[in-house]
């Protein structure tokens, strides 16, 4: 752990060569440090997400969160940007992968990088974390209650996503999955199906389903926050990243 860090907004090159905004935090030491791309939840590139980025720096990782809504709403408040992105059906998968790739390259290019990059995503970012791990060459992926990895959005949803479980054979790294037993998106059955699919393809993974927790149990500013599940989840994350990113 380090109580000295630098945290700031930077510009990185995202999908299609676009310059996008990102929040970057890293310990001030020489390293070498593992790195984490943080994929924000659907409510956007907000204050709690930036706290998560700093938390990784505190624990000895370089971390960056690209603003996935940079293009739709440059300079807008996170809630206004999220409303705009929502109205447009969310972030296209191909663009997401390009933005995470740009963020990972930015992290690897830092002098203190140890060359390893993981990804973590919450809510819609959970699916996007998995999508990144089957699309890019990464070292570790954490999926926090990501829906629609398995299963299609119900009829009538304007959500422009499709299931990505079929891409499991392409998975490039171990996966840590953290889910709430009471969550409906994804359901326990969908989590079990993803678990089976990864086992079938001999993909290293570790899933935890917390009783008494639903969706967004990590979100400290929401009624869905479940301290016991969140604290255990963070412990699992430090153990997982410690094994695959820090060493």
């Amino acid at each position, binding site marked *: 752990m380090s109580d000295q860090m630098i945290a700031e907004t930077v510009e990185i090159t995202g999908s299609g060569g676009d310059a996008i905004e990102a929040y970057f935090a890293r310990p001030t030491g020489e390293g070498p440090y593992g790195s984490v791309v943080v994929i924000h939840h*659907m409510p956007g590139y907000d204050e709690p997400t930036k706290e998560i980025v700093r938390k990784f720096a505190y624990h000895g990782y370089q971390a960056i969160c690209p603003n996935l809504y940079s293009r739709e709403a440059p300079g807008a408040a996170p809630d206004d940007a999220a409303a705009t992105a929502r109205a447009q059906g*969310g972030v296209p998968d191909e663009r997401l992968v390009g933005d995470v790739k740009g963020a990972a390259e930015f992290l690897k290019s830092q002098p203190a990088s140890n060359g390893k990059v993981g990804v973590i995503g919450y809510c819609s970012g959970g699916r996007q974390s998995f999508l990144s791990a089957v699309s890019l060459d990464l070292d570790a992926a954490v999926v926090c209650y990501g829906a629609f990895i398995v299963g299609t959005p119900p009829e009538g949803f304007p959500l422009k996503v499709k299931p990505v479980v079929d891409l499991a054979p392409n998975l490039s790294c171990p996966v840590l999955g953290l889910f709430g037993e009471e969550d409906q*998106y994804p359901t326990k059955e969908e989590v079990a199906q993803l678990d089976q699919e990864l086992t079938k393809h001999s993909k290293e993974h570790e899933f935890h389903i917390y009783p008494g927790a639903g969706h967004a149990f990590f979100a400290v500013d929401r009624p869905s926050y479940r301290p016991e599940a969140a604290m255990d989840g963070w412990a699992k994350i430090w153990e997982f990243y410690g094994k695959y990113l820090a060493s």
Partner: protein
Amino acid sequence: MCTYTTEHLKVSGSGKGANGWFRLSDASVYFDHPVHAPYEHSLNIDFLAPDIGPSARVAVELDPDSARELANAIFAALDKAPGQLRLIEVK
């Protein structure tokens, strides 16, 4: 739950946002996580003017009962207005 379930409609009128009044052109109505209301889910309404930009937004987040009462109140207020006034179209 990130539903993305959203009703879109064109509207005509004005709203007051962070930068003052502006002409509205669109509205979104959806049930999902609120940003500020102390509920896991809420009925959210955004009054928008996309031509001005993402910040041209008047947002409300209501618990479901409040949202239904609001909808009924809107109909009640419109029904009580004199018929002639209800037909006025403001450009």
